[in-house]
């Protein structure tokens, strides 16, 4: 049977007109993650270590909606969440409402491995992050200009948007008076 790996960077209404400067960095990150993962699996890393490794890489890429580059709440803030699960043992860990933790996926794994719980959220999760000494940054670290613009568009359209939703083209009333 052998090892196998699959990863995603989000699904949605991704237009085929997506310009190269927004398409290529994402594809390059997918290829880099795939290379990292296959090298780790070939060298005998466990599935759990590999999925954490890959998701950390994706969290650290500003082009994906996780970690740095996370989309913004209605208040213009970030609230990041993550989960991990180990198939053999059914152990799992999850976190929500993070605003300073650089790699939410690694905190989720610490919840799984260091607490009797499955899920920690908001200030409890943030306190656990400090107790565990994971890397944290000021919330502004996670906010990109692109996502500020996406929030502005979403507010203008009064919509909640999934990844890659395109702004609704303005109907140009000037043509019909």
């Amino acid at each position, binding site marked *: 049977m052998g090892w196998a790996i699959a990863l995603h960077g989000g699904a949605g*209404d991704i237009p085929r007109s997506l310009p190269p400067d927004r398409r290529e960095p994402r594809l390059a990150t997918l290829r880099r993650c795939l290379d990292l993962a296959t090298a780790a699996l070939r060298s005998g890393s466990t599935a759990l270590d590999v999925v954490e490794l890959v998701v950390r890489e994706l969290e650290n890429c500003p082009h994906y909606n*996780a970690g740095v580059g996370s989309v913004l709440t209605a208040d213009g803030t970030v609230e990041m969440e993550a989960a991990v699960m180990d198939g053999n043992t059914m152990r799992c860990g999850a976190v929500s409402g993070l605003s300073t933790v650089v790699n939410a996926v690694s905190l989720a794994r610490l919840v799984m491995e260091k607490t009797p719980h499955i899920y920690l959220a908001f200030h409890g999760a943030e306190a656990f992050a400090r107790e565990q000494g994971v890397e944290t940054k000021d919330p502004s670290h996670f906010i990109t200009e692109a996502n500020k613009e996406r929030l502005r568009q979403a507010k203008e359209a009064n919509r909640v948007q999934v990844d890659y939703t395109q702004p609704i083209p303005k109907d140009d009333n000037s043509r019909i008076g």
Partner: protein
Amino acid sequence: TVGCVAIDSAGNLATATSTGGLVNKMVGRIGDTPVIGAGTYANRLCAVSATGVGEAIIRHTVARDVAALMEYVPDLSLEDAAARVVAGVPPGKVGLVAVSAAGEVTMAYNTTGMFRACATEGGRHEVGIWPDD
């Protein structure tokens, strides 16, 4: 949202998912990603990571349903299990990657596209966005 599923050489399965959620979401809103069984799930049969509109994925317990089909429907392939679950979710709202204990890999979605990649020891190697990539 980003996610990864894997089976290692010893046959262990695992999944991980991480996200910022939805643009313009209400403060305090929880999506599918951290809800075990909705956006993220793994057992001895398969590992699943989902993406899309969290409210739909939670309602349809997407990740657990793929695993449940694998558990209760004899001889069902991972691809068929994932396709059935994705087809049951309103169009435009879900994508997932999954790997099975038999080393099968599937990347299913009912949206226009999904940023995705996979590789297997048997030589499969894909990177894509749209269905015909």
